[in-house]
């Protein structure tokens, strides 16, 4: 029997007649072809692929080099660092695919469900496909660096090779296990929304060591050893220890690792078998409350009230909004705490409030992007510039309804935290002014540099493929323009002339209104182009 080619596999199960090696070869070839497919297509994709390749190879070489440098360090340091490195590799393998689905676009088991493959073949094939690629290669190289760092004799090297391979296999299998188990949940909308928001948590947790170091709570070496002690009996810790030990204890640890890998693999096959026959989680779609909102009582009936109502609902319901608001506030908080220090400088409360306003305003730098392909619903209604002005005003109003109280909390909180109660009012007024300036600038960048904001699991994904540069340029231009336009009241305040802040909110209102006017004029002329820019396939 000849080996069927991977793309047209008629009749018998691929690999049915040629055993394990056939299946492995087949899937490795399939994955390589998929990777090679990146080299066809448009230039942007080619550049991105080559860039990924280069980055992965450089990281692999650098990682290996750093690991081998560890052999010069004292033994305990080298051991602790290797344990940490192995543990972070494992954790990254488990978390990264959830955050950046598509970074390592391996095979989707659902796409293979219709082929007559036994679960064992499928698992073997998917494992092969998972380890074929640049990131797995980089991981393997860095993990091998551990041998040069730790092995002290021939026993260490001898045990090191299986230890490294098992640690690597564990990374891959654990990663697949996590994605397969979660894939059911991730296919429902609620699961995706939840994940998108919980990404904030991951970022937050990742900041903790940083913050601790900044606060000088402990010296780095002691902390490193403490963490290594905790991780000593986890699988990565055992792998590292096996290499360093090189004796019977190491052998036992390798046996444990092997059992763990097989166990994870078995669980993965079970999960895969279940995932393939379980239908998509039928999202139990909850009803939303019908409300007679506050908005309708405050605003006259008309387009403006409609936009404000819709925007407020979106801020509450769309994970991308929640992630944006969450990270803006979180960044302000982190900066506030890390700058807090022992002797706060004079302008700190004002600075923090201004920063918070800038962060919030930066979110409004691409207001049409989140509407994305739904924007046509507005486009078929808006016939005149006036309509677009009302739309932008509604968005600004909705944003301000949340931002104004939030900024008040930031101003009061940071002033009290730094013991500068007298600065509350200037900080508050200045931050509102900054918000107005930011919203005005944001509406202009929204129409001049619009880009598509993908609606997918990773809510941190900034822009559709190929628009990343535009998104970055937009954000930088917006930030620069916001700061420049805020200078008339910020600079005097920095020089100590605090009464200027009284005028800041009015100045902000003026800039916001001018921004809306300019943006509406541009958007009215460029509506089809705007629509196209925010409707890119993602």
């Amino acid at each position, binding site marked *: 029997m000849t080996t069927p080619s991977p793309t047209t596999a008629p009749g018998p199960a691929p690999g049915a007649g040629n055993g394990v090696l056939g299946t492995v070869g087949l899937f490795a070839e399939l994955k390589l072809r998929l990777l090679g497919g990146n080299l066809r297509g448009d230039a942007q994709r080619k550049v991105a692929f080559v860039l990924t390749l280069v980055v992965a190879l450089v990281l692999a070489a650098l990682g290996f080099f750093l690991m081998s440098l560890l052999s010069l360090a004292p033994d305990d340091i080298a051991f602790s660092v290797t344990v940490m490195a192995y543990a972070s590799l494992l954790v990254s393998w488990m978390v990264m695919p959830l955050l950046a689905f598509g970074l390592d676009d391996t095979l989707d088991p659902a796409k293979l469900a219709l082929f007559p493959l036994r679960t064992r073949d499928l698992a073997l094939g998917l494992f092969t496909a998972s380890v074929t690629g640049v990131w797995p290669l980089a991981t393997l190289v860095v993990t091998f660096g551990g041998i040069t760092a730790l092995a002290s004799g021939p026993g260490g090297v001898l045990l090191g090779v299986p230890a490294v391979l098992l640690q690597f296999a564990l990374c891959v299998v654990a990663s697949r296990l996590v994605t397969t188990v979660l894939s059911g949940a991730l296919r429902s909308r609620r699961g995706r929304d939840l994940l998108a928001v919980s990404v904030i948590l991951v970022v937050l947790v990742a900041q903790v060591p940083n913050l601790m170091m900044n606060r000088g709570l402990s010296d780095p070496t002691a902390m490193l050893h403490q963490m290594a002690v905790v991780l000593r009996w986890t699988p990565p810790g055992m792998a590292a220890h096996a290499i360093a030990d090189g004796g019977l204890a190491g052998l036992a640890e390798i046996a444990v690792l092997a059992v763990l890998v097989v166990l994870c693999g078995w669980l993965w096959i079970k999960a895969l078998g279940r995932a393939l026959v379980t239908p998509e989680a039928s999202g139990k779609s909850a009803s939303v*409350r019908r409300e007679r909102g506050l908005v309708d009582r405050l605003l006259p009936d008309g387009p403006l009230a409609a936009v404000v109502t819709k925007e407020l609902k979106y801020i509450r319901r769309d994970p991308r909004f929640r992630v944006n608001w969450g990270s803006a506030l979180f960044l302000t908080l982190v900066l506030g705490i890390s700058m807090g220090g022992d002797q706060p400088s004079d302008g700190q409360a004002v600075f923090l409030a201004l920063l918070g306003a800038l962060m919030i305003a930066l979110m409004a730098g691409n207001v049409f992007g989140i509407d994305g392909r739904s924007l*046509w619903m507005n486009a078929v*209604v808006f016939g*005149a510039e006036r309509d677009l002005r009302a739309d932008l005003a509604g968005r600004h109003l909705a944003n301000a309804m949340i931002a104004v109280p939030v900024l008040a909390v930031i101003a009061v909180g940071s002033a009290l935290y730094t013991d500068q109660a007298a600065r509350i009012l200037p900080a508050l007024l200045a931050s509102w002014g900054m918000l107005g300036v930011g919203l005005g600038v944001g509406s202009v960048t929204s129409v001049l540099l619009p880009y598509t904001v993908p609606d997918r699991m990773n809510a941190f994904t900034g822009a559709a493929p190929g628009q990343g540069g535009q998104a970055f340029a937009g954000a930088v231009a917006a930030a620069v323009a916001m700061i420049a336009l805020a200078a008339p009241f910020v600079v005097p305040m920095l020089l100590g002339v605090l009464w200027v802040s009284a005028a800041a909110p009015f100045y902000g209102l003026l800039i916001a209104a001018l921004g809306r006017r300019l943006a509406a004029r541009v958007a009215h002329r460029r509506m089809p182009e705007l629509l196209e820019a925010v409707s890119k396939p993602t």
Partner: protein
Amino acid sequence: MTDAVRTHGLFKRFGEQVAVAGVDLAVPAGSFAGLVGPNGAGKTTTLSMITGLLRPDGGSAEIDGFDVWRDPVQVKARIGVLPEGLRLFERLSGRELLLYNGRLRGIPKADVERRAGELLSVMDLTDAADKLVVDYSTGMRKKIGLAAALLHNPSVLFLDEPFEGVDPVSADTLTEVLRRLTASGATVIFSSHVMDLVERLCDWVSVMSAGRIVAQGPLADVRGGRSLNQAFLDLVGRSPQDGQADLSWLGARPEAGR
């Protein structure tokens, strides 16, 4: 009879490829018109340009005598649109979507609420009215999209593939609503490549192929005694089937069962 829609030499090119190569579309007011053509004939591009969602590279389009690109206020008040792809404001419920749409057009809230309630009940969406659109099925999306397009009582309604992926019950609801609309004197233009449906519903047909109108007129004229399907195949021209011999294995069963 005046024309509800008329275009002159409408032209659009994407890079090298010419998507629409000078379309002269004419649809009389009050007709139920079908725009048919094979995949890639330029139907969606044409409809997008007529509804002001895509800027043409050349030519002009008029609706009720108003130029689409020079007089957008008049045109946009008169047209209702249901594009393909069905991206709606997904995080609103069906009812909220209709309310947003109506109020954005400046219709008083009380009126919008009444109309939305009636549309939801006609479309059989009352039970799902307070669920988020993101959780809707294809059929429900088409229906809520049509409801949103009808809310301001348009005189010309553009629908891109309104029946694709819709179950027979929902399709029947859609056709009922559209028939009532045309009976009141409004014009409906929809694109499709399901000939039976076009034959059953339409009194006016425009056939597109490779970016041009190849036939246009009352259904009977275009059909010319044949079935519309046959007329369509004759007009569009089927590519010669020279590959049939290669399919000899298809349907053959191996002697020994595996």
